[in-house]
């Protein structure tokens, strides 16, 4: 640890990359200048303006690269560490906005980022209701049920050999087929309300959880098992002190994978019928009527929630399995 620190120069020792900062500023200014000048125009931009966009993009990209290199070399906190990613996002959004305006791409095909953000703000109430239906009722309920049943099943399978031989092969097979293909069937069976989507989500997350948890419970070091036996530890104690802790990293892998699967399952499930609410419903309806500003707004909402959810599970993982080798520095 100490050796590493010595090896890195402190921020004060390195001068700020002024050239890079200036290039970022210049590039962003050029792009913003074009967007501002083309705000109300509805004609195609000329070659000069397109070159201006290109120059702005090139300058800003060069600058971001310089700044990122500088920040990578100095040891900094997470907020400062986010600066290169943030600058990249801003650069991409500005360039996309400028190009869409320069080529006058119709909003019915690709809306400009500013239009998407304006729409996102305007329809936020409805999108939040949609998110409640899709995320809380469908994805989260299905996730809890699927993961809960998955862990319970894995406990049983690891305990009883006949289950391991008779059931586990199917669970392994099922965990690698796209369960979301079942969506139309389940919607038809269970109706258009949220439970049908929750069922899709539960089935989708169930199998990976079973398989991963089982591996965690059984791939135990024989030495540790011998130790437990020499302490005369009972079945339950073995699980409590050895198998379950050993399985936690595996379980969390499945849980993190499950957050993504749950969002996909609930949104895609709504494509096959919904009761007038939900992010998937909104995306489908609006894509059909060329309201892509709303489609993108719904995608943003879904992405933000999906990332937050994943982050929450990852945070829990660090709290509960901080001892694991992958977190030790």
């Amino acid at each position: 640890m100490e050796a590493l620190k010595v090896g890195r120069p402190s921020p004060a020792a390195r001068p700020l990359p002024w050239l890079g900062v200036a290039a970022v500023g210049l590039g962003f200014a050029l792009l913003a200048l074009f967007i501002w000048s083309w705000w109300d125009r509805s004609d195609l931009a000329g070659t000069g303006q397109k070159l201006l966009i290109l120059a702005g993009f090139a300058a800003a990209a060069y600058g971001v690269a310089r700044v990122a290199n500088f920040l990578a070399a100095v040891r900094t906190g997470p907020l400062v560490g986010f600066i290169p990613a943030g600058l990249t996002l801003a650069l991409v959004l500005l360039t996309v906005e400028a190009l869409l305006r320069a080529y006058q791409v119709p909003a019915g095909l690709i809306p400009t980022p500013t239009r998407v953000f304006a729409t996102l703000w305007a329809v936020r109430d409805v999108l939040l209701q949609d998110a409640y239906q899709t995320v809380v009722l469908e994805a989260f309920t299905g996730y809890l049920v699927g993961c809960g049943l998955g862990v319970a099943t894995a406990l049983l399978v690891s305990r009883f050999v006949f289950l391991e031989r008779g059931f586990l092969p199917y669970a392994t097979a099922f965990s690698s087929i796209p369960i979301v293909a079942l969506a139309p069937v389940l919607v038809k069976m269970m109706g258009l309300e949220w439970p049908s989507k929750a069922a899709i989500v539960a089935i989708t997350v169930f199998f990976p959880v079973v398989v991963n948890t089982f591996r965690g419970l059984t791939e135990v070091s024989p030495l540790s098992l011998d130790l437990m036996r020499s302490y005369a530890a009972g079945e339950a104690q073995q699980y409590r002190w050895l198998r379950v802790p050993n399985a936690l990293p595996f379980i969390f892998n499945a849980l993190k994978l499950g957050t993504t699967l749950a969002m996909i399952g609930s949104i895609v499930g709504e494509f096959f019928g919904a009761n007038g609410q939900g992010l998937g419903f909104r995306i489908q309806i609006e894509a059909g009527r060329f309201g892509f500003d709303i489609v993108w707004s719904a995608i943003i909402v879904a992405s933000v929630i999906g990332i937050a959810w994943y982050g929450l599970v990852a945070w829990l993982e660090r709290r509960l399995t901080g001892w694991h080798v992958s977190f030790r520095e």
Partner: protein
Amino acid sequence: MRKWTVVLAVLAMATASLGTAQQNLIKVNLQLKWFPQAQFAGFFVAKERGFFRAQGLDVTLLPAGDQSPIQVVQSGAADFGTTWIADLLVARERGIPVVHLAQIFQRSGFTLVALKSTGIKDLCKDLKGKSVGVWPSGNEYPAVALFRKCGLTSSLDPRAANPDVKAVSYPFDPSLVFPDKVQLVSAMTYNEVNQIAGLGYDESKVDVFKLADEGINLLEDLIFTTERVLNERNFKGSGLTGRQVAARLIRASLQGWDWAVKNQAETVEKYVLPFCGNTCKGSGSRADAKGHQTWQMAEIAKLYNAGATTKGWAGFLAPADFQASVKLLRDQGILTKDPPRQAVDYGPWEEATGKKAADYK
């Protein structure tokens, strides 16, 4: 040696003549609005009776699921398409350069169906708080126009947080939602009305509200394309312009429609049923494909034989009808401005029929 040369020469000539025979026909993709059924009878007749071929066209009729035909035509996967006017004009307003070419149906066949036991007597008065089944992909506009006309908000409106009407989307089969999940369900006069009857809810048990009677007469099946296709100088290397191809397509299609409507039984038997498999069936007690399509053909004929068609102007978009549809869409805020002049092009229809739009009375 010589023998082989002769054989080879003959073979070469044969393949060349085959090649040119196929080259002479211009390949055209026409995107239908739905799966094959009597709704598109005229196009099937035009294809199978050789009307398209007589115009030098080799037309492929593409079926659609619940996706917008406009997206297919816009992407270039099809050259022409059939859709409804609300769908077309909204796409135009959102910047998709689609152009109306010919109006096949002169009247709306969109209805809302409710069980008599729900007590819904007057759509506007009794809609509030109800669930209504709608189809996505641009097929929800007639219902939206009705809600707005009645002063009601719906869950189809992304700006209404507490909608008066809950719109339930479902994949086209009314039995999925009716009558358990929704009080009212979208139904076309020519398809779902009969399916619902087949499920055991016939005229004695349900009320069928025709939206045309409620003042929502939004024109339906029409032929459209994009400005890109229309302004093509050399359509797929055929030597014809996009407009000329459009005119030929319209001429053959109208011929097909005229024949289909005059020979309904033969059309269903020979030109619809052989092409439509599973999607042609009705539901429940009226599941038989032949029965359902015969009935559909008769209902389709009513939509075709109306308005301009009755004056001998089949396929013509009467300016007054167009303005009525535009006004309705604008009044209900579905369109925010009048569509540009280029949204409708009478040129190909005029070339196809030899009539002048300005002469219509």
